[in-house]
């Protein structure tokens, strides 16, 4: 990898997993001076000490309100900082907002030097989002399976069916009612008024 810009990049994120994904992406692209911090009460001091050229922070992070005050007070920082890259670059800002990324950049940095960094952050946020969705879906699947297991157990106990017969019964009803098997399982559990 060719040596790239000597920027100080700071990633601020309450989610350490996402911060790690963004950091790795930047380091792999040749940006070596990447720091990351989570939530801390002495945010202003830490940001001042790190003197970043670019701050990548998730859009919804309440620390942004603190940062913007810091940028307002000129004595708090050596160089003025502005949000996003260039206000003429509407499509990138749009992309960043929908990915949940915001970026603060030291005044005077050229847009073409910053663009790849913001784009990397956007793509890593999107990747993280995808991973989280997949994880949530996997967890939902797991709980669906648990519902079916429980309903089978009820049918075996209450109706004296075998495990295969119980499952077949759930499946038959699901097909007949055009619903998912776990939904039928849920109905069975509700019908027997069991708590879990």
């Amino acid at each position, binding site marked *: 990898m060719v040596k790239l810009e000597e920027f100080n990049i700071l990633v601020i994120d309450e989610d350490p997993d996402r911060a790690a994904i963004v950091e790795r992406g930047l380091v792999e692209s040749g940006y070596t001076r990447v720091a990351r911090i989570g939530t801390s*009460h*002495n945010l*202003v001091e830490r940001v001042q000490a790190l003197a970043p050229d670019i701050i990548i922070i998730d*859009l*919804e*992070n*309440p*620390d*942004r*309100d*603190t940062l*913007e*005050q*810091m*940028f*307002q007070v000129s004595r708090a920082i050596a160089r*003025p*900082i*502005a*949000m*996003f890259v260039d*206000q003429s670059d509407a499509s990138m*800002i*749009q992309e960043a*907002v*929908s990915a949940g990324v*915001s970026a*603060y950049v030291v*005044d005077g940095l050229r847009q073409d030097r910053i663009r790849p960094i913001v784009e990397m952050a956007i793509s890593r946020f999107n990747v993280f989002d995808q991973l989280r969705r997949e994880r949530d879906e996997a967890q939902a699947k797991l709980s669906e399976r648990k519902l079916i297991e429980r309903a089978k157990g009820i049918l075996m106990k209450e109706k004296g069916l075998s495990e295969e017969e119980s499952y077949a019964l759930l499946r038959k009803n699901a097909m007949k009612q055009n619903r998912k098997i776990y939904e039928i399982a849920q109905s069975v559990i509700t019908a027997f008024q069991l708590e879990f």
Partner: protein
Amino acid sequence: MANTVRLGFVPLVDCAIPVVARAMGFAKQENIDLELVREMSWAAIRDKLSYGVFEAAHLLAGIPIAARLGLGGVPVQNIVVPMALGRGGNAITVSTVLYQRMLEADPAAMHGPRGLSARALKKVIDEDRAAGRPVMSFATVFPFSSHNYELRYWMAAAGIDPDLDVNIGVIAPPRMFDSLRNGWVDGYCVGEPWNQRAVFHGDGVIVALKDDIWARSPEKVLGVREDWVNDNADTAAALVRALVRAAEWADKPGNRAELAQILSEEANVGAPYEVLKASLTGKPVLRPGEAPLDVPDRHVFYRYTATFPWLSQGSWVGTQMKRWGQVPPDADLNAVVRQVYRPDLYRAAVAELDVAVPKHDWRVEGAAQADDRAFVGPDGFLDNTIFDPENVR
């Protein structure tokens, strides 16, 4: 087919109007499907409104003015204010330790009018300076917030320089009381329930209410994008009507307990019912263990023209921006306020409703002898200032 309006809000008592508009069906009556999105940061709300994630937002009054001026390194945004979202609700809370020090330093000031309680703080600051101790830290919620201007107004009236004698930072509202409890700040100015909550936990004492600084002063506004209003004039007017109706409901004393219940839900404010009820029924407790006050105007949602976007109130916010160096001294603020505050939209929206509107869009704020006193309520400043927007440059 209902028109969908996504509206972002921050969990505070003054998100009541949009929350009620949805919960009590006022939005639906106007054929609006109002989607409410809870946000934890003002910067996030501003950006989501600016870039089209939201159509409308519960905003600090300073944000649309700052956005129009492109302040704070943020690209210029044309957000307009077709209505206000109520009055009152803020307070200044200090740690119990600082309260004790203020009480010992100047008992007379602490037992006098609360608007002047900063005189005791001034004595504590002088003691600290003589002893070579570091300056104290205070927090507000955003650089362009009424909280920032109210805290500074209160301090400056007692001879404190808020830029030199203390350190004023920013903390998002829901994190405030934890910061006080952990000793990261000595005091703050924030909207309810985040003052009352610190008192109920025994971590803080309220030393001034918003009303003590500027009586019945304006608070949040409704922000929408100018281009959205232009393209969706009917929906925007319907939204204003729904919110005005909701404000009327929320203002009735008989509805306040139910309102506290609605706001206590996790999707809304998510604070304990008792804390919200104390504030909403005008019975705040200022000091742990003390009897509550009786201040029925603690939160005003409808009466006193609380939903009307007075140009003079926008103008006052602008003068505070200038006073504290946030705006270049030569900026023509009233011209900006005329672009941002849109009483014309409000008047058109409520024209068919039984809503009393003022004759003019501007008024002199804080004059003891104002002829519209009954209509707008008492509006004195702690230092008896009379704010005439005509004199604003």
